[in-house]
């Protein structure tokens, strides 16, 4: 039955992909922008955030950790565009450098989580049988915990700090990606070229990494982009709870935790700007992830 389904659907997909591949890059990009206007806007936001993070040392008007005690909790002004926090540190500079922290932790944990999940998911599908059964039950255990609870547990074990935050965010991502990739890999495993590879005597590792994993790129990329927004939000949440990166590192969640609550009435800018940065970043990455999913998911594309 599966073979028949593939025989029916593959030519149309291949045809569409070939047609898209024949388009010049800019035309293809233009078509994507027309089809995914929200995705395009979010892509601009994502690119802007990446540029801000990369260029932080050049564009930040002040050192993000330098305290100006004569200007503690100062309102937005010409000198401090977004105001200062309770230590007199420039909020604009801290928001800019905070993008670097968010992206570093977000990208690292999302890529690690998705990639490990990809390899484990494909491996599980490839071997099948008792290995797959056992492995999926382990994944079920991990999936039973909400993201933030799992991350909190990991931080409680390993402690605080950027490296441990990355580990804490990566671990809950792994089973989520592995589960999605596995379902895709189960179908790929049945395609004759895998049998052919086996017949040629290729090892398990080669088949998994060179023949199956590359064909699971669509779900992998969808999960990766989805994880980016979640990772930024998780990092901010952990820092807000005092379990993520620590002062004086510029990080959005930490900025909300510091003096934002105490000064919410008298100096609301301390909470508003990092909060806004988190909201816009997560919104941009989530929209971008959705548009990537819409573009790469054959089922959605067929609609």
């Amino acid at each position: 039955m599966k073979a028949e389904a593939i025989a029916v659907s593959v030519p149309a997909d291949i045809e569409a992909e070939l047609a898209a591949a024949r388009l010049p890059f800019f035309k293809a990009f233009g078509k994507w922008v027309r089809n995914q206007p929200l995705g395009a806007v979010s892509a601009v936001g994502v690119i802007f955030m990446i540029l801000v993070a990369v260029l932080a040392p050049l564009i930040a008007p002040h050192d993000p950790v330098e305290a100006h005690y004569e200007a503690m909790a100062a309102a937005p002004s010409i000198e401090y565009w977004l105001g200062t926090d309770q230590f007199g540190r420039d909020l604009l500079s801290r928001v800019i450098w905070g993008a670097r922290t968010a992206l570093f932790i977000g990208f690292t944990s999302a890529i690690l989580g998705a990639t490990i999940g990809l390899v484990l998911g494909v491996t599980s599908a490839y071997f099948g049988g008792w290995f797959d059964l056992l492995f999926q039950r382990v994944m079920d255990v991990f999936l039973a915990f909400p993201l933030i609870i799992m991350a909190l547990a990991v931080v409680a074990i390993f402690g605080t700090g950027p490296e441990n935050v990355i580990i804490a965010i990566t671990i809950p991502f792994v089973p989520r990606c592995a589960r999605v990739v596995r379902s895709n890999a189960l179908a790929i495993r049945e395609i004759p070229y895998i049998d052919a590879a086996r017949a040629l005597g290729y090892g398990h590792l080669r088949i998994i990494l060179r023949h199956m994993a590359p064909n699971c790129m669509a779900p992998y990329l969808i999960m990766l982009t989805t994880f980016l927004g979640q990772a930024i939000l998780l990092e901010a949440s952990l820092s807000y709870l005092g379990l993520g990166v620590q002062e004086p590192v510029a990080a959005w969640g930490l900025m909300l935790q510091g003096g934002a609550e105490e000064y919410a009435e008298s100096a609301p800018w301390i909470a508003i700007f990092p909060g806004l940065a988190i909201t816009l970043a997560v919104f941009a990455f989530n929209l971008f992830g959705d548009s990537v999913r819409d573009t790469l998911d054959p089922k959605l594309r067929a609609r």
Partner: protein
Amino acid sequence: MRSIRLKAVCAVLAGIAVGVSAAGPAEAATPKQGGNLQFVVPAEPPSYDGHRETTFAMIHPIRPFYSLLIRVNPENPSSTTDFVCDLCEGKVEAPTDGGKVYTFKIRKNVKFHSGDNLTAHDVVATYQKIIFPPKGIVSARKAYYTMVESVTAPDDYTVVFKLKYPSGAFIPALAVPFNFIYQKSVLDKDMHWYEKNINGTGAFRFKEREAGAVIRGVRNTDFFVKGRPYLDSFDAIFAKKESLRVQAIRGNRAAIEFRGFPPKSRDDLVKALGNDVTVQTSDWNCVLITTVNHKRKPFDDVRARRALTLAVDRWGGSKYLSKIAIVKTVGGIAFPGHELAATKQELEQLAGYWPDIKKSRAEAKRLLKEAGVDLSKTYYFNNRAVDQPYKIVGTWLIDQWRQVGLKFEQHVEQTGPFYDQLRNKKEYDVSIDFNCQSVVNPIVDVSKYLSDDRSGSQYGQYKDREVDALFDKMNQSGDPKEQRVLMREMEKLTLDTHANAFITLWWNRIIPHRSYVKGWKISPSHYLNQSLDNVWLDK
């Protein structure tokens, strides 16, 4: 209970200007019985053992379950010389034998919450544990009692302390609120039992603990003071975040926090609640210090340690941090304002207190270079996950050190792991630490800075026999002038010449509470006057 002024014994402490301005309303009304007092506590107790712990996180929820031999007069807690009997009978008697023997008669109507009667042997066993702890037992304040030769019980209701030499520091040390009286039979079986269990003779019985949330106590109907406590029960609610604690009082989910709020929170509460809130303020016998790990390079080198203190602008810090934190006063190792404390002129002679911060930081940079300190490396700074004032002062310190080229990564831990790092792991290079004392008694309060085999709470892992000798000489001297000279020498060695540890800023205590809380009076310590037996609710 009757009180006396121990002028003869505590002459050294007389005349202390503890600037307490208790601003509570006049309490002419008769105390009302009943009610549940809800108060907020910023951290959870690392253990229940008063002898081992040094934190308010233990005192505030646990002290109401225990009694002391003597205590500071709850009606006059700001006094440094006014002590009354708690488990002893009558008044605190003057010493005999030239000031070397103190005799206490123990009350006969006292029962532990387990139902067993309290005798003098329980008091003796308790003080044996505090003063002469066996190996493996932590007694944080054992150095307070270096003058004690023996503690004995000649009969079931008499306790005798024999001193090696007369000391004005003894009675204040005896009134330390951490000296919970434990049951001898329990200690004989397991000295660690009280770390995880509670069995006292206090005004309240332990009801339950919900981890991370609350410790509840209910009235002890067998309490040895008839008619007390006034309250039916109390809930000690744990709330780590300061904003949450402020909102709890604002929303009447809690009536008081006994530790202290920064000026900003006081202003917010007064603005929001008007006459429904009462503010009590006091100087605070509490200081954040910087403990340097002497076993870790490069801070095993005195030059690197001196650079650490020279980098810190205390005079500027006092001006700015007092607006956002509960710290304010620049001082040395003795409680500022006390006659044994350094004057501003004396402080300005010490490293880290120079009036010219640029000159001070230039010297710090020179010393770092001379000592070959690796400025490309990031050092480990251990801090406690309590907003006020730990995290604020910690962040400020990192900024100060950054200005001489030193980089620190801050590791903020909850109270338990924070102490574990200080006491056991010892992986930190520099740590926030504190010297918070109860009764103002500088000649023993400075025991924090003794060698680690003398002090029960020195975590810098150093031994300094010169400092130890000065401390002993100061404690054995009856002359306040000589004590002052010795205190200056000890201070110079500790903070400057040997740079063993550093003072940051002394605290300023501000307690805004619901006006219906009556009977509680502020003191210069957040450890004192927390038995709650005299607190009532005017609702």
